[in-house]
């Protein structure tokens, strides 16, 4: 998991690169990291999921938790994901309607509401 800052037309964006398996075992770590980011005032997040090999509903729960936290500060949480396997679970759960999902980090950083 790594974090970097990029400047977009809407202001600075924090790009969070997530990898590996995000499940009931690793989700608590990701949750803490998202909480830390928001606590340190980073309210516009781009979560790059291209390196994610597995994601279950526990991982989704953590992303939804992050979304709620940034929204409480008028922030945003955008996802970058082109993997069909991963997108499938967003569709099943209806979360494609909740998260803006982009095909590249550039696109996500350039986006604004």
């Amino acid at each position, binding site marked *: 998991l790594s974090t970097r800052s990029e400047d977009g037309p809407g202001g600075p964006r924090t790009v969070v690169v997530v990898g590996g398996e995000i499940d*009931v075992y690793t989700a608590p770590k990701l949750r803490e990291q998202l909480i830390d980011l928001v606590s340190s005032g980073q309210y516009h997040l781009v979560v790059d999921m291209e390196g994610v090999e597995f994601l279950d509903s526990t991982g989704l729960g953590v992303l939804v938790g992050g979304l709620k936290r940034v929204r409480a500060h008028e922030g945003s949480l955008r996802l970058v994901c082109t993997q069909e396997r991963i997108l499938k679970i967003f569709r099943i*759960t209806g979360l494609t309607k909740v998260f803006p999902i982009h095909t590249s980090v550039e696109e996500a950083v350039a986006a604004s509401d």
Partner: protein
Amino acid sequence: MAVVELLLSPLPAHVRTARLVAVAAARRAGLDDELVDELRLAVGEACSRAVGLHGRHAPDSPVRLTVADDPNGLTLSVGDVGPAAGPVPDDAGEGLLAGPDVGGGLDELADPDVALAVLHGLVDELTVRSEPGGTVITMRWPLGTGAVGARATIVAQR
């Protein structure tokens, strides 16, 4: 019939063991890659759900995963000792959004109803049977014509 039964003390790490065992069985049975992905997620959801429920209600009881394969398909079942499964929300995402507020505790991490909703969306042959002692989730994947053909060839060789 080849059967593997796995009894797991209810820890998150053991959900990975469950996925590993189920995926190995599925590959060996010749399940298509796409269905193997589906099975990996389904077993993960069912076991995360059971591990979460046991953690709250029965930390000393093991979660039980059974993998049985016959020539026509692969049957997996996951048994827990938690309270009866609730009604399935139409939209699992709503369950997550309706969940504990910002700052909510660990529950955000393993909502048993959301797991169930994902299973309903994911698995065609799914049975959820709640009994006083707990819930058993049974899932079945048929083995495609390709696999059946291969078996027929082996039989013919004998």
